């Protein structure tokens, strides 16, 4: 009894210290950023966006950051490959490399503007992406190994942490929204997207971490995956409902195809809303935490410190919740879109008739 009690206390103490350190670290990052000059809130946008180096903090004149590889594909020239540290000299002044330089917005530009190239560098977000994928593989391959050993054994350890979530996605997201007969085909995608978003949302909350799921390019790609799968699994009924919606007066379709146009826009707004929702929620969370910290610099008062830390702590807890909710919402909406795409109305009516006939 007492052993259990001590363990509980030590666990909660550990987490309290961890969360406090997170907030403190974010504060120190902000102080470092503000010392670089410029506006008092410049650091917020800097930390929310992507970068070519992984910057942790700046103490005095020393920048603590990890240089990342820059990969540029130039038409007719091939690949340029070098480290991002080559864009700055030993005094941290920006210099050119192979005729390329980094502008104030972290974009790589060519001195000669006629050069056409694509920036496929391993940026902070891409590096974070790699880390999250390694984590995902490590966690779920080890969980899968346990199931392979004995599928009938009750779950233990990591397995018992993820099994309820996997069952939740299967029984409360996929089954009711896609349908009992077709949900299995979409399970791998729904599970992958849920855990990818959730893990990255949580990783993004770590101090000094990248804001991957709050990046529009990432959410756009994820939304496009859902869009492509929805479009390719669309049944005859799905397309009929879009281009010749049943139960709508004919004058809404001919001569001006008002309904088809509205329905067609609907196809595009679905992935668009997925993209914006995830991006805005995660980025907003990050901005709020940094803004609370920025209050210290705006008020220029040391008494603001405890207030900012307390509010920042609170926001961090809220963000833990948001991390799950946004992953859940993205997965749920994806499942609903798949469900709409695979629904077959006539078939169901036909089946009902068949069932009624013998009775």
């Amino acid at each position, binding site marked *: 009894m007492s052993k259990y009690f001590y363990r509980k206390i030590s666990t909660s103490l550990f987490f309290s210290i961890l969360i406090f350190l997170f907030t403190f670290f974010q504060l120190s990052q902000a102080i470092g950023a503000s010392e670089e000059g410029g506006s008092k809130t410049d650091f917020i946008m800097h930390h929310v966006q992507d970068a070519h180096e992984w910057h942790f903090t700046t103490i005095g004149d020393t920048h603590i950051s990890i240089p990342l590889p820059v990969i540029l594909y130039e038409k007719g020239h091939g690949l340029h490959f070098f480290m991002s540290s080559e864009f700055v000299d030993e005094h941290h002044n920006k210099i050119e490399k192979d005729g390329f330089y980094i502008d104030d917005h972290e974009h790589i530009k060519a001195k000669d503007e006629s050069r056409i190239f694509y920036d*496929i560098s391993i940026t902070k977000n891409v590096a974070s992406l790699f880390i999250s994928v390694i984590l995902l593989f490590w966690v*779920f391959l080890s969980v*899968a190994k346990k199931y392979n050993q004995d599928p009938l054994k009750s779950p233990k350890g990591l397995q018992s942490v993820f099994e309820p979530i996997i069952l939740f996605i299967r029984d409360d997201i996929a089954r009711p929204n896609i349908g009992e007969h077709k949900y299995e085909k979409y399970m791998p995608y729904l599970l*992958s997207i849920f855990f990818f978003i959730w893990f990255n949302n949580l990783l993004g909350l770590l101090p000094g971490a990248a804001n991957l799921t709050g990046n529009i*390019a*990432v959410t756009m790609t994820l939304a496009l995956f859902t869009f492509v799968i929805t479009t390719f699994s669309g049944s005859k009924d799905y397309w009929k409902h879009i281009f010749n919606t049943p139960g709508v007066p004919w004058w809404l379709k001919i001569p001006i195809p008002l309904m088809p146009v509205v329905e067609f826009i609907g196809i595009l707004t679905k992935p668009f809303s997925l993209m914006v929702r995830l991006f805005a929620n995660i980025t907003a969370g990050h901005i709020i935490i940094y803004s609370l910290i920025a209050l210290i610099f705006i008020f220029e008062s040391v008494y603001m410190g405890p207030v900012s830390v307390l509010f920042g702590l609170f926001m961090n807890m809220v963000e833990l919740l948001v991390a799950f909710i946004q992953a859940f919402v993205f997965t749920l909406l994806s499942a609903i879109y798949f469900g709409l795409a695979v629904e077959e109305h006539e078939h169901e009516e036909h089946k009902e008739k068949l069932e009624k006939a013998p009775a």
Partner: protein
Amino acid sequence: MDLITPAVGLIFWQTIIFLVVLFVLGKFAWKPILGALKAREESIDEALKSAVNAKEEMANLKADNEKLLAEAKLERDKMLKDATKMGEDLKDQAKEDARLIGDKMIEEARASIENEKNDALRQIKDQVAELSLQITEKLLKKNLSDDKSQQELVKDYMKDLKLS
């Protein structure tokens, strides 16, 4: 504006990596996990179903046993009853038989007594006839000598004659 402009490089990496994630996790994680979950659910269903079946079978067995017991009891009662009845019947039959045999024996005895009596009477009659003839003969012989002596003689003979 920078915040909402998707970067080409990140889209490129995100697409490739997410496809890898889908492939690797789909093949090596979700497939075995979902398969195992399904297998476990099916085995639990199976176990529950078989438990219900076993319970039903037990109940059936118990009912069968009770039925058998009741039948056996009934059979025993019937057998006991039959045996008692048979015993009584046998007793009655024996009594009846004994009575019949006795009656018959008495009848036979009576008949044989009658026959003996008739025989005896006939023999007596024959002897009486013979004696009468002898007496007559002797009387006839004595008559020829004297009367008195004749009567004495008849008396004498009559003494000898015993109606036995």
